């Protein structure tokens, strides 16, 4: 059961990720990413992290991706053109990615001591203590300060976002001028 569930939803993850790369319209990429997020939520459930699965759906898929979708629609981003933007990205970047993947894969496959994922097993083997109880015990006692700091961080982020995205002084309906003369550097 575990195996089938894993294979199905891992497949959804990979398919969504590859689809994100292959699509040319950003909104399609956003939707693929939502697929990835929700599949990951299921995988978290399989690993016994129930709270995180819920948080993944609520926060990531439900808030962040919605934000992304809003921005895509607001800015009316169209299809991408296929142009050669950067030689370095191809020449240097791809081998780098391949190397990263290869190293990680080799290490993962050769390391000793990794066990198996057991369904139903949580953080502790003590029955009666749920995942969310475990988390909140730590979060509200030992890590209370970072927790509160995180909420301040989110507040700051909100303020920052508001400040950055508002119209500047001047005409609120001013359209951006695509003909502003700027020097171009040679794109690599």
């Amino acid at each position: 059961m575990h195996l089938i569930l894993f294979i199905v939803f891992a497949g959804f993850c990979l398919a969504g990720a590859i689809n994100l790369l292959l699509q040319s319209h950003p909104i399609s990429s956003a939707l693929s990413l939502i697929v990835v997020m929700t599949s990951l939520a299921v995988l978290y459930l399989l690993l016994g992290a129930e709270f995180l699965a819920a948080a993944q759906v609520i926060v990531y898929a439900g808030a962040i991706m919605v934000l992304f979708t809003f921005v895509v629609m607001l800015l009316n981003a169209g299809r991408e053109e296929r142009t050669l933007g950067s030689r370095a990205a191809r020449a240097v970047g791809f081998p780098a990615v391949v190397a990263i993947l290869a190293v990680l894969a080799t290490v993962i496959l050769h390391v000793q001591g990794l066990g198996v994922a057991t369904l139903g097993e949580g953080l502790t083997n003590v029955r009666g203590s749920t995942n969310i109880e475990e988390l909140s015990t730590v979060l509200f006692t030992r890590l209370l300060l970072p927790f509160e700091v995180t909420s301040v961080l989110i507040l700051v982020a909100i303020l920052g976002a508001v400040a950055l995205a508002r119209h500047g002084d001047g005409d609120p309906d001013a359209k951006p001028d695509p003909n502003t003369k700027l020097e171009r550097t040679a794109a690599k």
Partner: protein
Amino acid sequence: MNGYPHLWLIPLLPFAGFLINGILGRRLPKWFVTTVALLAPLAAFGVVLSAASTVYFPFNVTKCGPCGPPNYGWTVVVLPYVENLATWINAAALHIDFSFVLDQLSLVMLLVVTGVGFLIHIYSVGYMHDDEGYARYFSYLNLFLFFMTVLVLAGNALVMFVGWEGVGLASYLLIGFWYQKKSAADAGKKAFIVNRIGDFGFLIGMFLLLANFGTLTFSEIATKLGQDPGWTGGVVTVIALCLLLGATGKSAQLPLYIWLPDAMEGPTPVSALIHAATMVTAGVYMVARTHVLFDHSPFALGVVAIVGAATALFAATIGLVQNDIKRVLAYSTISQLGYMFLACGVAAYSAGIFHLVTHAFFKALLFLAAGSVIHGMGGEQDLRKMGGLWKKLPITFAVTTVGVLAIAGFFPFAGFFSKDAILYAAFLQGPNGKILWFVGVVTALLTSFYMFRLWYLTFLGKSRSPEIHPHESPWSMRGPLVILALLSICGGWIGIERFNGFLAPAVGAKAAEAGNPHLELVLSGVAVGVALLGWLVAHLLYREKSTLPANMAAALPGGYKLLANKYYVDEIYGAMVVKPLFALSKILLGWVVDVGVLGGIAWLLGGIAMLSGAVLQRWQSGNLRSYAAWLAAGAAALLLFLLVPWPTVLASFFGIHFGMAGH
């Protein structure tokens, strides 16, 4: 004073004067500068006297404060008195201290240096009164005194070398004092460079001393030489000749005398102090200090004597036809230094030192008087334009007369006793000595002639420049003149035998010669006779028939030109040494090093910077994707570096090869 000579004060006081006047002098009022400048040599002279008194009048009071009433006692300070100030070099076998030594020889030199130095300082107050660089002048003078006292007091060759170089430096600074004048700046350079050539010899001598004796301390060298009778000839000769080279550079002997006439570009008190009384005598002093080396090498002694005699004659011949009053005196100095070297060359060191002392008196006197004349004539230095000054500058005339009589060697002036001692010692030296004696006598004749020529042309007769109205110098200038004149009169009365006895512990007693007083009287008579002859000829040429010199010069044009142009020595050196050096420098240093190596390095660095800049510039494109790519590459490299077990990988990689090779 607590009964011990504090030798370290003697150099320190002039050094303090140098610092104060050098650093603050420009902002201080003139009277302050003068006071500091005069106090330094006076105080140094006082310390020398007190040091002498601790030896010869050792009564002193040692105050024993809390333990009772003062204690009147006698401390016995025995010469040589060594004062070790600090350790300088302490490296394995080499141990050199900053040590000062007071013995009879250094005591005599110190009295001359600080005493005559003080008189010249007083004279300078008047002479340099209107000069813009007043404070700078006195700071340099004090610096010179500092180095000279270090040189005299030195207990080992290295400290002496410090003083040696230092007086060279002070000489350069003072000769080129009026540095805006090109001839003065050139003369300063020439003096320093020629000195350096001599110093090379001194250095080689020091190295050889170290290599053979392991020490540079004079007393230790003397002990080692005395212990082992095998030290004769060979390496000792080489060392002595090297040291002699240094002495010829400093004391203006053949072949390194060329800087001294040019050094007359400096102010006249400088010429008096440095180039007559003290610095140029450093070479003689050094030979006397290291006399044990010369004693053990008859060959080197012979070279010294020949150099001295030849220089004396050579310089005297040039001095016959010079027209600048200071040049005449300069060549006279070279000639008299030749006498001192001649004395050392016949191992009569105390006679040489005796002549050094009397020469300091009358040569300083003559230079200062010449300065007085120049000052009175408003800067005129040409003999042909002077004349008839005996009425206008009476005191200067009187003291100059004393000086001329002293240098010519008339009885009972100072020069008579010292010059006679030298000639007598030379005569007794065997057949070669008689030749040296003859050369000395001829030189005395020439000396007398050109000094009286100077006397006649400057003071007597009618004035050849009626437009100039000379005035007598201020008392600050006349006072030292009078004192020096008195010393020139009675400086020799101590007599050579007593002087010999006094210096004997320091320079070694000359074996009692089997000379008889009759011979001495006869030789003295000959010397006085030639002096009179010289006066007579000068009188004839410059008083009676004043057209005769011109006719004689016209009769022997070649000879006259040769002498007037100083035997073209400067030109010869210029062609043989200076020009090739310039050419070599231009090619080797100018082109190869300067343009090639250094320019090449600069060009290379610039090229590297530009090249790397050009390469790196393309990297910073502002393109987000390329930045991201390089980020990923960096991350990949880091992961590779951290996660791959390189030792095993590399070992297996190479191990496979080895394994296969092994099979």
